[in-house]
């Protein structure tokens, strides 16, 4: 989707503000929000791509005003309701509905480190054959889906060069909509700054973007 989350190249957000000796969390609730989000993913009612898309579907004004973990909780609420872990009323009132179905058991403390150490690799040994080769010129397709895509607006229509072939990976654009993994080659593509930004390019160099087979066409 062409959402406000797709921020590459936007102006108007002001300077970057580094913080000296920044704590890991600024508030306790941020740590709890992180942990709740990770723990709820353990129910496997969604995957990481689904959850990214859930955050993108926040009201655009809310998305911009919310802090990072607020965005997470907003997306999580949407997912829990859509995937049947909470009722709409429970999410709205934060009160348990005794009539709601009960899931069990939750993620156990002793399982957490191993779960995190394992992560969720997206590389797959098999997938569609590679359509492009390293060194080849490609154009990022001009797609504008209403749903999730990992092809940012700022590279669409632009020509670049394949720099790396990461091999077959789960295709996020499909995976985010429960359409399966559809593994296909993931490439790192170099786009020259002047190609992306024209004469207004404020630097000499390039931007390297990871794009899937479906995002590219021959240039």
């Amino acid at each position, binding site marked *: 989707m062409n959402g406000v989350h797709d*921020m590459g190249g936007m102006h108007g957000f002001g300077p970057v503000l*580094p913080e000296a000796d920044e704590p890991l969390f600024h508030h306790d609730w941020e740590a709890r929000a992180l942990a709740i989000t*990770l*723990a709820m993913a353990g129910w496997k009612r969604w995957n990481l791509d689904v959850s990214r898309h859930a955050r993108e579907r926040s009201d655009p004004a809310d998305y911009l005003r919310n802090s990072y*973990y607020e965005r997470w909780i907003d997306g999580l609420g949407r997912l829990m309701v859509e995937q049947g872990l909470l009722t709409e009323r429970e999410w709205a009132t934060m009160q348990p509905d005794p009539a709601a179905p009960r899931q069990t058991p939750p993620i156990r*403390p002793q399982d957490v480190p191993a*779960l995190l150490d394992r992560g969720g690799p997206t590389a797959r040994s098999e997938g569609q054959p590679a359509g492009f080769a390293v060194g080849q010129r490609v154009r990022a397709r001009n797609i504008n889906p209403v749903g999730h895509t990992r092809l940012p607006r700022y590279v669409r229509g632009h020509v670049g060069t394949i720099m790396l072939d990461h091999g077959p990976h789960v295709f996020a654009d499909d995976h985010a909509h429960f359409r399966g993994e559809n593994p296909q080659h993931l490439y790192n593509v170099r786009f020259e700054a002047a190609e992306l930004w024209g004469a207004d390019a*404020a630097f000499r160099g390039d931007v*390297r973007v990871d794009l899937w087979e479906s995002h590219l066409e021959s240039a």
Partner: protein
Amino acid sequence: MSTHHHDHHHDHDHGHDHQEPPSDAALRVKALETLLTAKGLVDPAALDAYIDYYETKVGPRNGAKVVARAWTDPAYRRRLLEDATAAIAEFDIRGRQGEHMVAVENGPKLHNLVVCTLCSCYPWPVLGLPPVWYKSDAYRSRAVIDPRGVLGDFGLVLDDDVEIRVWDSTAEIRYLVIPERPAGTEGLDEAQLAALVSRDSMIGTAKVTAP
């Protein structure tokens, strides 16, 4: 309209409201944890375990060890540039948001910078959880169109002839910048070198300087 009388929680760029009473967000997350616990959907002890993992097990010291090894062991450096996931795993560093790693090396005429314009992807196992600025809209929007301006916000001014290479983490590949080893560090051992390597230098918003 609201520029001068913000009534909303608008700290997404820094989050400095330590002195304030519990925010809406704090109350809401507390209520959510209570609800999910009551429904059997989360175990609060498991939440503690998640937090403990990120407070104690992962963080930028992990990445710094990798960088220091690469600086001091040419064979390791080659393995790291060839297959970063495997080379990093030699330190028993692996896991969520670091499943597929690529290491990119700065040089006198090349500076790498990592961003995620679409959300805030970041190599958690080697760098820990991302700082607020990395997740900020300002960084996400500007890093790909004006990286020199962004570096200026960090006080880092590169010579005009240095090429900038920005890595936008649009998929599940996570990038680790190997900063330049500073001059004057020839006498330091690997642990001493690791102590010099800052988090920001492994994202690309800082250089490493000699002590």
